[in-house]
């Protein structure tokens, strides 16, 4: 793998420009006999001279209709190269769900844990980018430090930050909020090649394909790094309260790995209605999702609150009278 000469970001096969700093990647030197001359491009089928067709996005022969294959921009749907094996098996995931259903609090129906019917329990290796980069980050913010008449004073600064193993979701199957809850608990040190055969008893799962083409992915990854940088500069801001944090990053040496991360997607039904819950693929104690609410309990609570409020109002009125 070669690197961009300007920002040292790793270049990938087919890149025409660096993903970070847009420096064009030089073409391989073309052999030339040095003599300028006029040429025509000939149809591979009938030998007639052909012109580029905007419709076909390739040279197409006006006589026989044959379109020539030419080098197209490389913009593949990405695929994971690494995967994290599951360490939570099917039984453990189901146990985790039952335990979670039993801890749904006072508003949940009492029979939830016993009456919930597990409809499906699917192991999913969901797609994410794993990003490493370094950056010079300049920032501005308002904070209460040095404030005069206004409660806010402007501040600015710059700091060099390293971003290590930032996980950026690229999943179709998981919602962004769901992915965010899973991310902090992955042990990335246990990643293996996606082609490595499964060990004995290891959970087999579908490896999800990425939700974006390579070109669109870059914008996504850069936005994620900027969002991370915004959080990481917060300790630099003087004072106790701050607002309007802005960052401008000069990214360098970015590498992007594509990884598949394990999670159990559970669909269960309670009294006819479907719900969804997710169990982390490496830590069975990380469980979250939707669960039904017993509206009769909510109604009872509201009635109690309303009664108390009415009594208080009555007492106040009587006193005033």
């Amino acid at each position, binding site marked *: 793998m070669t690197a961009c000469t*300007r*920002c040292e970001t790793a270049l990938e096969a087919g890149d*025409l*420009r660096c993903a*970070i*700093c*847009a*420096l*064009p990647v*030089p*073409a391989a030197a073309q052999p*030339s006999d*040095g*003599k*300028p*001359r*006029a*040429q*025509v*491009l000939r149809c591979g089928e009938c030998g007639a*001279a*052909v*012109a*580029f067709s*905007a*419709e076909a*996005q*390739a*040279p197409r022969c006006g006589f026989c209709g044959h379109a*020539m294959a*030419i*080098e*197209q*921009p490389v*913009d593949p749907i990405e695929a994971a190269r690494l995967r994290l094996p599951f360490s939570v098996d099917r039984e453990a995931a189901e146990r985790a769900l039952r335990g979670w259903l039993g801890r749904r609090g006072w508003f949940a129906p009492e029979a939830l844990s016993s009456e919930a019917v597990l409809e499906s329990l699917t192991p999913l290796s969901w797609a994410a980018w794993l990003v490493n980069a370094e950056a*010079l*980050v*300049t920032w*501005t913010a*308002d904070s209460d430090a040095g*404030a*005069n*008449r*206004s*409660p*806010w*004073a*402007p*501040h*600015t*600064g*710059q700091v060099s930050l390293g971003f290590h193993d930032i996980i950026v979701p690229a999943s179709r199957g998981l919602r962004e909020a769901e992915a965010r809850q899973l991310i902090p608990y992955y042990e990335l040190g246990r990643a293996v090649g996606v082609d490595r055969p499964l060990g004995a008893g290891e959970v087999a799962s579908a490896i999800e394909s990425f939700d974006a083409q390579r*070109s*669109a992915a870059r914008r996504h990854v850069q936005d994620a790094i900027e969002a991370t940088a915004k959080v990481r500069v917060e300790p630099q801001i003087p004072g106790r309260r701050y*607002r*309007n944090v*802005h960052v*401008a*990053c*000069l990214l360098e040496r970015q590498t992007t790995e594509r990884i598949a991360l394990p999670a159990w997607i559970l669909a269960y039904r309670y009294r006819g209605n479907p719900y969804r819950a997710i169990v982390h693929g490496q830590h069975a104690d990380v469980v979250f999702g939707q669960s039904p609410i017993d509206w009769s309990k909510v109604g009872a609570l509201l009635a109690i609150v309303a009664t108390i409020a009415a009594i208080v109002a009555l007492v106040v009125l009587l006193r005033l009278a």
Partner: protein
Amino acid sequence: MTFACGHCGAGLQFTGVRTETCPYCASPNFVERPPAANQPHPELVVAFTGDASVARRKLDLWLGSRTWFADARIKRARIEDLRGVYVPAYLYSAVAHTEYTVSIGEHYTEIETYETTGAEGKKQTETRSVTRTEYRPLSGNHVGYVTDVLASASAGLAHGELQAVEPYDLLAVRRYSPAIITGWIAEEFSREPDDCRRVSRGDAVDEVGQRLRRFLPGDSHSDLAWRTTVSWESLAPILVPVWVLAVRYREDKAALRVVINGQTGAIAGKVPLAWWKVSLAIAVAAVVIAAVIVAIVSPGGPPG
């Protein structure tokens, strides 16, 4: 420069272009030659995404949607000479380090007292809360890459004309190959790279200014001044697709020149106004204003 047609051998003149169609055998020829200092080899190219009929439809829609003030003849004008041209340009990118100084406005509220005259003519003191702005000096740095800056290297299409139909979707850029330009007009590079670099650098500094305005904290700002130092500049020769055409709407006037982005379909052109319509609108507005003034003044009668 004269070359022999690659198909029939007839003599072909290539003046300022790197493609030419042979008048004898209709073969689309292109010139391949080693790059020279004043004649770089294109590195990248953005391909046309539609043919002339697509451009014509876009143009008809655009002409039809011009303002009421436009010369009405423009809408049924004759389109002359619609040409798809690969325009030479330089694609500039750089690292930009900027030092700025600015005055940041931070709002605060104050309770102020003021006097009013009550219903019985007595003076009363009341309070109200007002928002005021405190200005604080701030100086600092801003860093970033400036990418995707295009500067026209064409003799026929000025920098401003190209800018008017930008942006191009550069995610769809390709490595230059004669196969992409064959059969179209591809103009040769005819402006000095140093001139284009200077123009691009100016655009890059403007771009930094726009980013700075979004970067600043506070509720408002004034007196923004910045000095940008660019390093690691890159200037890549690129061909971008443009439809250029002349619209002749009056025999006694020069044709209206319209430029269409050959990739996105964005259109730019200065549509002439019908001055009698503008004058009429001004006259109507003046009459209305006069009528309003008269209506306001007359019920009060003459002063005194």
